[in-house]
């Protein structure tokens, strides 16, 4: 069974971009457009991996991460920051906060899923689609 991935992203175009890429590569996704909704999804649907934007309305990515980490059963779920904060020091800041990975925007669609897959347990990886690029 491929990993189920929760994508928390407030920008609809960017949410669709990531959702489409994951879907095409065989990963079922759950989506949320706010931190609040993302946490609700996390607690009710138990995704295997979370991709989280950092700038989100009301509760930002850092708050979402710290709420996830408090969960007694699933606090160690892999959470990857996917963010347009990509100035020097932003990666270190995300890592220091406890994100397992950091992918700066704009993402590279040719390698994005591989970057994410590196965090997925081998038995939960999807088979690759046919692509001539």
């Amino acid at each position, binding site marked *: 069974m491929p990993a189920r991935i929760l994508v928390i992203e407030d*920008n609809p*175009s*960017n949410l669709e*971009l990531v959702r*489409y*890429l994951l879907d*095409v590569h065989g990963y079922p996704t759950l989506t949320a457009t706010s931190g609040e909704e993302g946490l609700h999804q996390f607690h009710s649907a138990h995704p295997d991996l979370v991709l989280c934007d950092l*700038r989100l309305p009301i509760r930002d990515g850092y708050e979402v991460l710290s709420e996830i980490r408090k969960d007694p059963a699933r606090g160690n779920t892999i959470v990857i920051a996917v963010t*347009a*904060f*990509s*100035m*020097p020091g932003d990666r270190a800041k995300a890592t220091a906060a406890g994100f397992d990975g950091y992918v700066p*925007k*704009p*993402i*590279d*669609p*040719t390698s994005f899923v591989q970057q994410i897959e590196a965090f997925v347990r081998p038995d939960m990886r999807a088979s690759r*689609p046919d*692509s*001539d*690029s």
Partner: protein
Amino acid sequence: MQNDNELIESRFREVLESMPDGIVMVNQIGHIVFVNAQAGKLFGYDPKELCGKPVELLLPAKFRGAHIGQRSRYHGQPRPRALDSGLDLFGQRKDGSEFPVEIALSPLQVEDAVFVISVIRDIGERKRFEKELQEKNTELANLNQAKDRFLASMSHELRTPLNAIIGFTGILLMKLPGPLTPDQDKQLRTVQASGKHLLALIDDLLDVARVGAGKVDLHFESFDCKALIDDVAASLRPQAESKGLELSVDAPGGEITVRSDRRALSQIVINLANNAIKFTERGRVRITVDKRPAEGKHVVEVGVHDTGVGIKPADQAKLFKAFTRVNMTNPKAPEGTGLGLHLSQKLAELLGGAITLKSEYGRGSTFTLILPER
């Protein structure tokens, strides 16, 4: 009392009146025996009014009690105290208003009597300046923070839509949604190249803004400059070879230690070598690393030599200005942001160095980064 007054008046009036600061003299029991005109003006009294009065009259009421004790202790062990004692002292004018003062004290023996001479300076204006300066500093720090926040937000806001543009264009070019006609493929590649160009522009602009705002963190350490340049050359070699160009590094002296910032130095050399590859169609790009004496010290010179188009003398002067691209009229001119050389020169300056240029139009160019050895 009357005697004290006369004694001081006769001996010192002239010299004390000529002093620019306020002078108040008191006798052993703390009574004023002399006030010069300056001090009179400072406190709003006619000097004559004050003679014979306790000196505490010139202090705000809340300090008077303590002052009597301090004054008698001072008389027991008098020693000079300078104006800038660091104490927060206040005087009180005849109209009751308070003002900050600095007071220097010295004992003065005249015949059998010991007097204390106090030099008093109104520092109200200086205090106001200090406060203003402090406020200005806080304001500057706030502005600086606002600028940081602005840069971070701008970077974030510009990247967010670019993510969708570059991302979906890439998806279409990967043919994930379906096949493309040759025209669609070509046009989407134009969208992709433009998107990436815009991204490069944003990155370079932010770099320029950061350098301009002094926000570049430099970490100076000693390292082998030759090794760093070998690494840069290795990363750019595929690009050079894809154009049929040879890319070489020559360091006649072998290892050359510099004390500099690795990241900034790499960025400069990558920029210069990238340009050399971009603007050379035939021949080679050679990077030289050498050390030579200059003004009693040594400088390290990193030269990037190409056999490319070269730069006209008229264009050479404006080359390092932001957004300058000298081949704009040539439709086949390689893509660029016009910020690379500007940024490189600024970074070189931060490293204590400079970039110079020698070029012959049509024959090639040599950009030389000159760095202090230590």
